[in-house]
């Protein structure tokens, strides 16, 4: 069992990880989710003892990392974000060395190294220099290194970064395979990965925990915003108007260009019953509905919701705000001017900055968001 208790890390005055606590039970696969720079790697470095914490501690099988680091390190296999491999060494020599460093008894060394190479499918490159290997292979050599010494806990920091899609799937299978006799904590910002292999996830952002729960529970917690996705043929303003005016529609989340005259609308609705009046209204307005699907709130949405502190501003809102700001500035300037030289006959006209940036229909930028104001 790994217990993380009030772990905090400050870099100078900047908190990288702020008072996080969670526990990982034996034989569990825990996904550690967060956007880039959320503090994932820092936390993992602290769990493995590479980085001392500012305060708080980590208990691994009851051993405290600050008081008994050797016992903790013996139980942990760590694959850091950048695989710690020496380019001038050969794969096999490197793994032998890593096994020695982890104090694997000499007679077990050969077997363990061979097993690890077998598992990561790097047996055929064992005689090659690590520096000549591709990134994917290097990552796997680093992974093999983490398995040496048969640690009870595996800590994997973004194990699939830089791998090609087949390798990603291989690594996923490997993690599932390893979960049978290891406890695994792995970090990622790829959500599909988490859904594929974990039971439980920790979502972290800006050094703080946003959620610790099973995937199902987290998904359920964001339920309530039902979304319909409509592909409609027709003039965009007319369609938008019609959709907005239908009862039960909360807002149009996103409008996406599909092909000439066809746009996809993501619409937030109150319930599934809105489908019928919506279809009817659109047909009445002489718009062809080509496709209609329901979008279920997913882990992805939960992730976005939990990691962004405020609602995302749509582009129109940003422009509007910008326009207001510019207008206010200009007004202030003008009043100042008129106060200073009230006798001056020529008022300053010709605004250089127009409120609300002009929206040109650029061919390359078809995606634009529209919000109900």
């Amino acid at each position, binding site marked *: 069992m790994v217990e993380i208790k009030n772990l905090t890390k400050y870099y100078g005055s900047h908190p990288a990880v702020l008072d996080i606590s969670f526990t990982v039970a034996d034989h569990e696969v825990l996904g550690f989710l967060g956007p880039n720079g959320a503090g994932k790697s820092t936390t993992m470095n602290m769990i*493995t003892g*590479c980085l001392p914490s500012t305060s708080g501690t980590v208990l691994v099988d009851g051993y405290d990392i600050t008081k008994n680091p050797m016992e903790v390190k*013996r139980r*942990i296999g760590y694959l850091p974000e950048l695989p*710690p491999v020496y380019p001038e060494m050969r794969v096999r*020599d490197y793994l032998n*060395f890593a096994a020695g460093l982890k104090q694997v008894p000499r007679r077990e060394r050969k077997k363990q190294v061979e097993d690890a190479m077998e598992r990561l499918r790097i047996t055929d490159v064992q005689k090659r220099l690590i520096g000549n290997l591709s990134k994917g292979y290097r990552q796997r050599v680093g992974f093999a*290194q983490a398995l040496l010494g048969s640690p009870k806990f595996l800590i994997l920091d973004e194990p699939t970064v830089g791998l090609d899609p087949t390798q990603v799937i291989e690594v996923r299978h490997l993690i599932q395979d390893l979960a049978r006799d290891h406890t695994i904590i792995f970090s990622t910002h790829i959500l599909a990965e988490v859904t594929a292999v974990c039971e439980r996830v920790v979502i972290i952002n800006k050094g703080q925990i946003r959620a610790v729960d099973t995937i199902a529970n987290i998904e359920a917690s964001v339920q309530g915003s039902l979304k319909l996705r409509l592909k409609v043929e027709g003039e965009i303003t007319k369609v938008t108007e019609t959709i907005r005016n239908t009862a039960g529609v909360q807002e149009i989340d996103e409008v996406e260009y599909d092909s000439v005259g066809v746009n996809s609308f993501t619409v937030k609705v109150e319930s599934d019953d809105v489908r019928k009046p919506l279809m009817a209204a659109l047909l009445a307005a002489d718009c062809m509905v080509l496709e209609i699907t329901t979008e279920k709130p997913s882990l992805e949405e939960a992730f976005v919701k939990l990691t962004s502190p405020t609602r995302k501003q749509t582009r129109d809102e940003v422009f509007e705000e910008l326009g207001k700001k510019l207008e206010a500035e200009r007004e202030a300037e003008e009043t100042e001017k008129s106060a200073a030289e009230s006798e001056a006959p020529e008022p300053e006209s010709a605004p250089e900055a127009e409120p609300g940036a002009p929206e040109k229909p650029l061919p390359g930028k078809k995606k634009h968001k529209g919000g109900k104001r």
Partner: protein
Amino acid sequence: MFALYKKEVKSYFLSPFAYVVSALFLMVFSLFFINGISTMNSNVLKFSFSNIFYNNFFYFIFMIPLLTMRTFAEERKSHTETLWLSAPISLAKVVLAKYFAVVTVYLMMLLLTLFFPLVAYWHGSVVLTTMLCGYLGFFLWGMVCIAVGVMISALTDNPIIAAVLGEGAMILIIFLDNFTKSALIQSMPPVARVFEWFSTQRRFGVFSQGLFSLADLVFFLSLSAVVLSWTIIIIEKRRWSRG
């Protein structure tokens, strides 16, 4: 610890690096040897190795930062230090393993120079005590320099900077004696005395005369130990403030 030591020693020979440095060292050594013999006065039919050692050290000392520059700086740069930071091995052992690996490479170079006394023995006679003590002094002096080089390597993540700073430190080590003898320092006896404590050239001089001085042996060893413990502190400190 042995695994790390073995890997470190091997890594010197995996690249042409150690070969190039030893070749250069041997070239300098042989040049001095030839020079020493050719300038030998006919009425002084004695030829001393300590002279060669003395001259050699001035050149060799500048090669030491080249040997030590990569020890920690390179690992920090390529993020391989997580390997031994997360392994069940204490930092002291890591520092010692790396230090002794450099010392071993250094010792190998010294052993190669045994060729010259052998040649001298073939054609004449060698004063064994002077030679052995000279070698011991040379080795001990080198140990201190290596410790300083390793410490400097731990200060930065750039091997080139480590080498340049190392050269500076080497100049300081070797010229501390001359500096102490300057009129300015001599005018301040307490300062001069402190500098004298750390002067290494004088102590090497004792060895090179064929004398074995326990006090100086302890000095060289303890100075290395102190510098290495600073290295441990530096790395430990950096772990705390690392971004």
